[in-house]
């Protein structure tokens, strides 16, 4: 082993094998894991023990901030900074404040959703060590991969490699850093 190892990558032929292997990996206590598949596999989150994303709460927070910004902005302009009588209404006319506040709610919630999704996924990420394995290109075509990182507390090169080989993997690759 000349180069530093990022982790071990196991290759599978079918999604079922991947999900089964992922369950065993989770049950063995590995935490720093990831799975790769050419199409979305809904079972994999549960199989790998991935926790639910906090994104919905961020989006809710973004929406509430947008709502308060919209209301605050209009209150500041129409009531405090530059009050003008329009159509004989009071300065603080809530019905007319609602559409802009609503739009700002949607705007900030949508921004939070997109930017939060990118941030939580660690994107954009121009380099990832798994691409050092040439066969990994097949992850976008027909093969399924499971990764255990060396950073995992339970990681021991020989033991983990042996364990992954016993998961019915086609092959286990060293992923160079």
């Amino acid at each position, binding site marked *: 082993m000349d180069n530093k190892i990022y982790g071990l990558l196991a290759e599978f032929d079918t999604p079922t094998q991947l999900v089964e292997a992922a369950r065993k990996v989770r049950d063995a206590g590995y935490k720093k894991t990831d799975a790769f598949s050419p199409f979305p596999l*809904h*079972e994999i*989150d*549960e199989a790998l023990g991935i926790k639910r994303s906090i994104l*919905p709460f961020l989006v*809710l927070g973004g929406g509430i901030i947008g709502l308060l910004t919209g209301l605050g902005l209009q209150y500041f302009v129409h009531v405090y900074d530059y009050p003008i009588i329009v*159509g*004989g209404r009071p300065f603080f006319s809530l*019905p*007319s404040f*609602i*559409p802009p506040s609503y739009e700002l709610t949607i705007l900030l919630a949508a921004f939070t959703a997109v930017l939060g999704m990118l941030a939580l996924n660690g994107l954009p990420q121009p380099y990832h060590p798994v691409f050092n394995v040439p066969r990994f290109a097949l992850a976008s075509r027909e093969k399924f991969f499971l990764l255990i990182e060396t950073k995992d507390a339970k990681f021991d090169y020989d033991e983990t490699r042996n364990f992954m080989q016993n998961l019915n993997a086609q092959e286990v690759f060293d992923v160079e850093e």
Partner: protein
Amino acid sequence: MMISKFDAQDFQAPEQVNGWRTISLGIGGIASVIILVIALIFPEYREQALRSWLLGFIFWGGIGIGCLGILILQYVTGGAWGVISRRILEAGSRTLPVIALLFVPLAIGATSLYEWSHLSDDPIIQHRQPYLNVGWWIFRAVLYFVLWGVMTVLLNRWSGRQDGAATYDEAAKLSADASKFSGPALAFFILVVSFAAIDWVMTLDPHWYSTMWGFLYVAGWGLSAFCFVVTILAFLVDKKPMNRVLGKRHFHDIGKLMLALVMVWAYFNFSQYLIIWSGNLPEETKWYITRMDGAWGAIGLLLLLFHFAFPFLVLLNRDIKRNAKWLAILAVFILLLRLLDMYYMIGPSPRIGTHGKELDFLSSFSWMDLVAPFAVGGIWLWAFFGELKKRPLVPINDPYLENAINHGKGH
């Protein structure tokens, strides 16, 4: 012979439906007799009896007609939720003849219900006489039922033929026919609902008008239909045969659509309010002035909080949308608020001979407003459960049925 692996015999409605049917008819029959006898025998209570009947009719008829709308919608959009709930929507749409029958008391009693049905020296009513007169109003109602009827008959016929389809191609073609028909039908459906809602409810006050009115009913009846379907699905989810079909994800999807329609309902209501508030014309604002005062104002606040804010916040939660029981409890809660919403629209409208003066809550409320929803509802549910039994609970030869069932089991 069989072209799919699903057998119609395995998907018959559970036995319990017969019991629900009998109970519905019992309650509906007794309550209907009470209301209709009062309308016939006591002329002084006739107007109130008919208004209460109208409340029940608009609420329950709205569920049935809403089912037709959602049936059309799911052929346009596709999706697993549409395949697994289609037979319930179809059963709802096939209650149309009974809805038409429940409309008959209103048609016969139109002169006891609508101010414009009397010759008047009021110039506004005189001006509207060419459109608002009993003959033409009844003709329009017949036309609405005929148009809804054509949609109901065609969609149900294609879907029924699909169950007996001999080849996969034939089954796929019948689905394609229904989809092709449903695009234009959806546009007509929305127009017909708008006209019907204006004719039947908005003209209770012949002086007042709102251009948002039709959409309030398109969204409201759609929401009612979704809530009703969720309630029925939740009853069926732990019984044969639907326990093999329904999954958490189906409820999740319908829950999302309920959230969308709760928001659309609030959006249309607020639009109407904003337009009238901006215009600030006395002949328009009076509708809201009455309804924001006293007990009506409290009911309006209840609607804002519990027809919009509360379901909106609860439906944001993923776990509740995925739990059939909790979603159904929320759906029944929304249905109750739908009834209150209908009462909020019908209740305060001026009575005949009051020169357009709207009523406060105490002089408008009658015990018949509580009985009539049971009267119309019992009869409607009896018809619904009868229709539900007639076909397998899933479209067995639909090309997407297996995918739709598997979709529900995913995460």
